[in-house]
């Protein structure tokens, strides 16, 4: 039993069995996080390098903690965004990493496909921590872990994803993951931020946010980037908040006990009100804890076992 590939680039090519294995393994990992001594010796002597071309304290810290709880050594490779535009090639970065002898490379990059490019040029495992608007598989895995923990299943659940789908790697990974696990996914957001042909992925594109939330078991709200307004993709935050913001009234359309989720950081008062973000149905903080557990599971499954993968 194990994962079939050496890398985790996205959830598009993963099986339901593999997702289940990761989520099942994350359970025992969460128990470790709850201990006073949060450390097991599993990955002693292994090295995890985090390479972040985009600032993301939360994801980076989550991966580093996951590695440390499993006794791996972690090194952060500071890769400023500017060096990308300067044309310092990702291939060169890859060569350096290979020379340093890492076992896993965790990559965050502003451009879609960067993780795949890196994985192709390295023999060691690559975990995609978000590449452009492509995928952010560990976020989707922690989302699914959180939902399964609360609801006991994923199959047959109704999941609404609200916001800027076009630029969201989280949305894409969530769509792949949830549909593979048998959930029904609905999308809502400004039509200028719904990417072409997405309905062909087996999701329902709703015209209004109400239609998407109606009867939903999970309401996953995406962050709206202020720069999208400057790019003219939607008219303004006030209108966005009025048309797509999640208020207690809108949330009341969801199924009783529906979970409110957000990949963070939240623009309070824009994509959701503080009442919703801090309300009883919100599992946003648990998502963060579960993120560490899911990443521990993934590190164990990728490099905890036999070397001849």
């Amino acid at each position, binding site marked *: *039993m194990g994962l079939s590939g050496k890398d985790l680039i996205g959830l598009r090519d993963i099986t339901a069995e593999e997702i289940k294995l990761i989520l099942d393994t994350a359970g025992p990992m969460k128990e*470790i996080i709850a*201990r006073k*001594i949060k450390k097991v*010796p599993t990955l002693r002597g292994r090295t995890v390098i985090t390479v972040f071309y985009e600032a993301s304290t939360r994801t980076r810290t989550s991966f580093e903690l996951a590695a440390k709880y499993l006794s791996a050594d972690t090194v952060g490779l500071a890769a400023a965004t500017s060096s990308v535009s300067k044309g310092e090639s990702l291939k060169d970065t890859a060569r350096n990493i290979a020379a340093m002898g890492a076992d896993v490379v965790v990559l965050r990059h502003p451009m879609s496909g960067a993780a795949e490019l890196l994985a192709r040029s390295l023999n060691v495992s690559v975990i995609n921590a978000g590449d452009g608007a492509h995928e952010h598989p560990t976020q989707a895995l922690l989302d699914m872990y959180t939902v399964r923990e609360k609801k006991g299943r994923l199959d047959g659940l109704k999941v609404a994803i609200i916001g800027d789908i076009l630029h969201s790697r989280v949305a894409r990974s969530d769509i792949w993951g949830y549909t593979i696990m048998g959930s029904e996914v609905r999308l809502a957001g400004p039509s200028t931020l719904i990417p072409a042909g997405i309905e062909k992925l087996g999701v329902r594109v709703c015209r209004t946010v109400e239609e998407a939330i109606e009867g939903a078991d999970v309401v996953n709200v995406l962050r709206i980037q202020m720069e999208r307004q400057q790019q003219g993709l939607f008219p303004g935050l006030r209108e966005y908040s009025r048309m797509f913001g999640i208020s207690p009234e809108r949330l009341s359309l969801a199924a009783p006990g529906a979970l409110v989720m957000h990949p963070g950081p939240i623009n309070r008062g824009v994509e959701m009100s503080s009442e919703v973000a801090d309300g009883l149905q919100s599992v946003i903080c648990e998502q963060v804890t579960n993120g560490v557990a899911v990443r521990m599971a993934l590190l164990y499954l990728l490099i905890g076992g036999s070397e001849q993968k």
Partner: protein
Amino acid sequence: MAKLKAQLLDQEGIRRSLTRIAHEIIERNKGTDNLALVGIRRRGAPLAERLAGRIREIEGRAVPVGILDITLYRDDLTTLAHQPLVRSTDVPFPVSGRTVVLVDDVIYTGRTIRAALGALIDLGRPQVIQLAVLIDRGHRELPIRADYVGKNVPTSRKEAVSVRLQEIDGEERVVIMELD
């Protein structure tokens, strides 16, 4: 495929061994004060439950039982062809200051017990750790020995000892298998 060579214990044999071990634990520890049992997954877990049941019958007092998954503590992860599943550790009581009896089905090289000691100590600081096993088949590779043994069985390295328990395997016996 491995083929059956001999049966070491039947249902009655297992029952008698566990009863004897339960008596020995009580005697050695002068009762059940401060005592806890922790079974090592997988077959140590039901054995720990059974021992706790036996002790309660004898002493009339319940002993807390926990389950330890030692996968993350194994020293052979990189050499195994198949990556073992990680299961949960469930020790719902503080171990610090207690007398903890680790329970497993078979002791062989001692490496599982070494991993279990590591896992247990990460949960706290027990006063004493003891070890109970149903079968000791020899061939130790580490300086570890069991405090309570159901049956000592000399074996060859080409053999495997298989403990079959009702809770997991749907039958109740201990057999010795010849490996190809």
